C-alpha cells in the first residue's frame, strides 16, 4: 500500500510542528457531532511518493479512498500493535479510567451503541435505533437483533439496562450521565431500553459513542462482581475475543468468528503491547517486532512522512489539544488569580517547543477546540506569542498585592519528551517571576488518577477532542468539580457561572447555529481567563508495516461511514486491518 496520509490542513498557514505530549484524554464515551467543517480544509491522500489532495466537505477523517477501492482485503494473519500506555485498570466500562490506548484496546472487545460518522453526526451501531421524545427528556434505545456476546449471552434491552445502570452509578462514568434518572426495559419491547432524563439532552447519543456506550456481557459483569479476578478478562460483543492480559506487557485477542458485522474482522488475532517511550515505539516498528504503532511524537511523524518503508495514516480531525492544565481553585494557590495564569501563557514560547521538540509537525493552539471542531476560532484572546515582559509585569502586579514567594509544582509523565517540555516551562516560569518551579514525573498509569484527585498545580495534559461541546461538559462544569483529594473529572476545578450557563444551554439545544455560537463563546472565555495554557492541536499517526493495510472507516447500517480518530483521538478500528499473506 505504501505511504498513506489522511489529514486535515488549515489554509491559514499556521500549521506548525508539534510536541508529543503523552498527556491523557479521558473520553468518557464522548464523540460528538456537528462541526460541518471548514471549506478551507483539505484532505491529503498520499500514495507512495505521489500526493493527491481531495476536498472533503465534512472535514472529517474518512477512509483513504484508494485503499478501499483498489485493494481486496485478505482474511487471516496477526498484527502486533504497540501502544503508548498500558491501562492497568479493571477492564469494565463503568470502572476503567480510559485514555487513548485503553480505548484502542477496548473498542475491539466492546461495541458501542452509537458511532461518530462522516457527516459529523452519530449513527446507531450496536443499537438498532436511538430515538428521542419531543423534548429530548426520554430516549428509547433498541438493541440490534441476533447479536450475542462472546460468552453466548444475548444482547437485548436487559443488557442495555444493565450496562447503562452501571455506567450511571459507576465510579468513573457517573459524571457523564448525571441527567439520567432511570433506565428501564421498554414494557412493550424486551429488545429496547428507555432512558429517562431530568432535563433536555439533545446530545445524549454522542455520549453513547464511547465508554458509557460500550456494551459488556451482563453475565460477565455479574460474575466479575463476585470474583474480581475476572475484571481484567472483558467479555463484549466486539470483533475480537479476549485471550490474555498481562499488565504492562500484552493484551491479546483472537477473531470473533461470529461477529455480527461481517466481513469484519479480517485478522485472526491482534496483540497490543505497551511501549511508553515514543522513540522506542518507533524503533520497534522499524525493527519489525511490532506491525503497527500509534504516536503523537512529532519527530516520528516527520520521519515516517518521508519513509517509503512505513505506511502511515495521520488523524487530526476533531482531535485533542495538548496543553498545560491548571488547578484554578486550590486554597491559597496563585493560580486562582487570572494574572498569574495568563502570565504563564505569556511566558511560554509554544512555537519554540513545537519547532525544537516536535519537528515542526503540530499546529499551535490558542484554545481547546482544534480547527475541525465546533467552536474553533483563530483568535480567542489567548496570548499568541511569548511576551516575557508582559508575563513579568503580571507576576509583579500579583506579588505587589500578595507579598511573598510564589512556588509551583509542574507534573509530567515519565516520557523523556514530556520531561524536556517541563524543563523548558520551568525555566520560562521562573524567568517570569515564579520563585520556585518543581517538576514531578508520574507514570502514565497513575496520571489520570492524580489529575482526578486534584493533587496538582500545573499538569501536562491532552484532552477535549470531539464533535459537540457537550462532550466537554463534565470536564468544565462546576457540578463535576470537587475538593482537592476528592475525585472529579473537572480536573482543574473550574467554577465559572458563565461557563456553566453556556454548557447547560448547549446541552439542551439541537440548533447547530446556536450551538456553534455557544462553543465560540466558551473558547473566548478560556482565552481571556487563561484557565489552561494551550499548546498544540494533536495529530495522531498510525504507522504500520507496508504489508499491513489499514486503518479505514467502514459503512454503517444507515449508509453513512464510521470515522476513526474523532473524539477519542487516534483511536482506529483494527477490525478493518488486513495483512498481506
Amino acid at each position, binding site marked *: 500500500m505504501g505511504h498513506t496520509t489522511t489529514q486535515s490542513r488549515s489554509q491559514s498557514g499556521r500549521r506548525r510542528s508539534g510536541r508529543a505530549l503523552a498527556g491523557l484524554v479521558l473520553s468518557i464515551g464522548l464523540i460528538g457531532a456537528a462541526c460541518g467543517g471548514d471549506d478551507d480544509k483539505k484532505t491529503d491522500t498520499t500514495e507512495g511518493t505521489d500526493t493527491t489532495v481531495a476536498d472533503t466537505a465534512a472535514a472529517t477523517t474518512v477512509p483513504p479512498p484508494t485503499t478501499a477501492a483498489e485493494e481486496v482485503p485478505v482474511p487471516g494473519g496477526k498484527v502486533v500493535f504497540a501502544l503508548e500506555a498500558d491501562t492497568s485498570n479493571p477492564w469494565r466500562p463503568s470502572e476503567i*479510567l480510559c485514555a487513548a490506548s485503553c480505548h484502542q484496546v477496548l473498542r475491539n472487545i466492546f461495541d458501542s451503541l452509537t458511532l461518530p460518522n462522516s457527516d459529523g453526526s452519530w449513527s446507531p451501531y450496536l443499537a438498532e435505533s436511538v430515538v428521542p421524545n419531543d423534548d429530548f427528556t426520554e430516549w428509547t434505545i433498541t438493541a440490534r437483533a441476533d447479536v450475542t456476546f462472546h460468552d453466548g449471552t444475548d444482547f437485548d434491552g436487559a443488557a442495555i439496562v444493565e450496562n447503562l445502570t452501571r455506567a450511571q452509578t459507576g465510579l468513573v462514568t457517573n459524571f457523564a450521565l448525571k441527567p439520567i434518572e432511570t433506565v428501564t426495559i421498554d414494557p412493550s419491547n424486551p429488545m429496547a431500553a428507555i432512558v429517562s432524563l431530568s432535563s433536555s439532552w439533545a446530545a445524549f447519543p454522542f455520549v453513547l459513542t464511547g465508554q458509557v456506550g460500550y456494551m459488556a456481557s451482563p453475565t460477565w459483569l455479574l460474575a466479575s462482581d463476585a470474583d474480581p*479476578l475476572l475484571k481484567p478478562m472483558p467479555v463484549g460483543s466486539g470483533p475480537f475475543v479476549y485471550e490474555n492480559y498481562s499488565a*504492562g506487557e500484552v493484551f491479546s485477542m483472537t477473531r470473533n468468528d461470529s461477529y455480527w458485522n461481517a466481513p469484519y474482522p479480517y485478522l485472526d488475532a491482534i496483540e497490543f503491547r505497551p511501549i511508553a517511550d515514543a522513540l522506542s515505539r518507533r524503533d520497534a516498528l522499524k525493527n*519489525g517486532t511490532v506491525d503497527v504503532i500509534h504516536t503523537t511524537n512529532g519527530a516520528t511523524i516527520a520521519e515516517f512522512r518521508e519513509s517509503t518503508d512505513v505506511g502511515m495514516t495521520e488523524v487530526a480531525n476533531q482531535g485533542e489539544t495538548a496543553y498545560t492544565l491548571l488547578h484554578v481553585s486550590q486554597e491559597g494557590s496563585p493560580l486562582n488569580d487570572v494574572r498569574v495564569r495568563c502570565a504563564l501563557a505569556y511566558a511560554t514560547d509554544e512555537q519554540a517547543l513545537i519547532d525544537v521538540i516536535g519537528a515542526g509537525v503540530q499546529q499551535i493552539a490558542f484554545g481547546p477546540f482544534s480547527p475541525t471542531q465546533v467552536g474553533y476560532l483563530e483568535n480567542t484572546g489567548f496570548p499568541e506569542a511569548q511576551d516575557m515582559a508582559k508575563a513579568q509585569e503580571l507576576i509583579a502586579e500579583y506579588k505587589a498585592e500578595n507579598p511573598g514567594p510564589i512556588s509551583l509544582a509542574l507534573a509530567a509523565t*515519565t516520557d523523556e519528551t514530556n520531561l524536556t517540555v517541563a524543563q523548558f516551562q520551568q525555566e520560562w516560569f521562573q524567568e517570569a517571576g515564579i520563585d520556585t518551579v518543581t517538576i514531578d514525573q508520574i507514570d502514565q498509569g497513575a496520571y489520570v488518577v492524580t489529575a482526578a484527585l486534584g*493533587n496538582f498545580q500545573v499538569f501536562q495534559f491532552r484532552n477535549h477532542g470531539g464533535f459537540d461541546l457537550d462532550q466537554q461538559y463534565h470536564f468544565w462544569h462546576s457540578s463535576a468539580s470537587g475538593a482537592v483529594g476528592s475525585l472529579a473529572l473537572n480536573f482543574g476545578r473550574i467554577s465559572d457561572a458563565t461557563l456553566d450557563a453556556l454548557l447547560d444551554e448547549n446541552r439542551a439545544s439541537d440548533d447547530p447555529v446556536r450551538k456553534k455560537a455557544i462553543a465560540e463563546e466558551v473558547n473566548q472565555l478560556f482565552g481571556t481567563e487563561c484557565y489552561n495554557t494551550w499548546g498544540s492541536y494533536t495529530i495522531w499517526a498510525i504507522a504500520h508495516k507496508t504489508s499491513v493495510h489499514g486503518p479505514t472507516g467502514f459503512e454503517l447500517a444507515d449508509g453513512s461511514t464510521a470515522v476513526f480518530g474523532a473524539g477519542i483521538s487516534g483511536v482506529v478500528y483494527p477490525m478493518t486491518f488486513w495483512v498481506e499473506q
Partner: protein
Amino acid sequence: MRYVLRRFAQTIFVVVLVTLLTSVALRFLPGGTDVLVALKTGPGATPEQAQQVVKDLGLDKPWYTQYFSWMSNFLSGDWGTTFQSNQPITTAVKRALPISAYLMVYGQLLALSTAIPVAVWSAYRQNSRFDRVSTTSAFAMLSLPNYIVAPVLMYFLSVQRKWIPFPSIYTSLFDDPVAHFKAFVLPSVTIAIPLFAGYMRLLRADMIGTLQSEFITTARAKGVSTANILFRHALRPSMFSLVTSAAVNVGALMGGVVIVEQFFILNGMGRLTVESIFRREYPTVQYAVVVLALIYVGVNLIADMAYAWIDPRVRARRALS
C-alpha cells in the same frame, strides 16, 4: 557449624527487619490513605468503600498486627491483587522473576566465561601486549554506562541491521529456544560488559599475587604444565574477590538492572518494581522488595559458604575460631 548457624541467625534478622519495614511502609506514604483509596477504587468512592479499602489493606490495625497478618499472607502466597488491574500480585512476580533470573544468569555467565580466561592469561603474561590491551579495554568498558551501551547496541543490531528483535519479547526457553535467546542476547551483553571489566581486573590482580606464591614456584619446579598451574593451582585461591563480587552482583542484578530492562522493555523484577512505584501499586512494590531482599540475602549466604569450598584455609580458620 557455629559459623553457619551464626550466619543463618544474621540472615533471619535481616529478613525480619526488611519485611517489618516494608509491611508498614503503606502507613507512611505521602498523601496517606486518601491516595490509596483513590488508586484502588477510582473516582467517586463513598466513605464506606474508602473504609473497606483501608480495612482490606490492614491499615486500621496496629502496626504489629499488620506485620503478622502481612507475614502470614506472604508465607501463604496470598499476596492479594494489584490496585488497578485486579490481577494477582503473585502472577506479576512469578512472571517477572524468571526474566530477571535469566538475565542475571546469562549476564553473569557471559561475563565470567570471558573474564576468567582473559584475566588468567593477562596475569600470566603480565605487561605483555595482550595484557595492556585487555586492561585498557576493561578500563574503557567500566566507564561505559548501560544507558549508553544499550541504545548503541539496539540501534546498530536491531534498528539498522534488524538482526535482533526489539523490544525483547520474553519467550520461555522451553517453548522457543531461538526466540528466547534472541530476546536476551542484547540485554545480556549490555549487562555483561561492565561485569566483565570488573571481574577481569579483580581476578587478574589476585592471580598476579597468587602466581608469585611459593607453591606455584614449587609446582613449576616439579614440571607441572602451564595450563595446570594456571587453572588448577592458581585460579582457585585467586577467586575470593571474584566470588564476593559475583555474589553481590547477583543480588544487584536481580533488581538492579532497571535501565537495561527499561531499554529493552523486558518485564523483569526491576521494571516491575519501578513501574509499580510510578503507578503507586504499593503492595506490589512491597512484595517485590521483599523477594529481592530475600534473594540478595540468600545468595550472599551461599557465597559465604562457598568461600570454604574455594579455600580450605577458610574452613580451618573458621574451625579454629
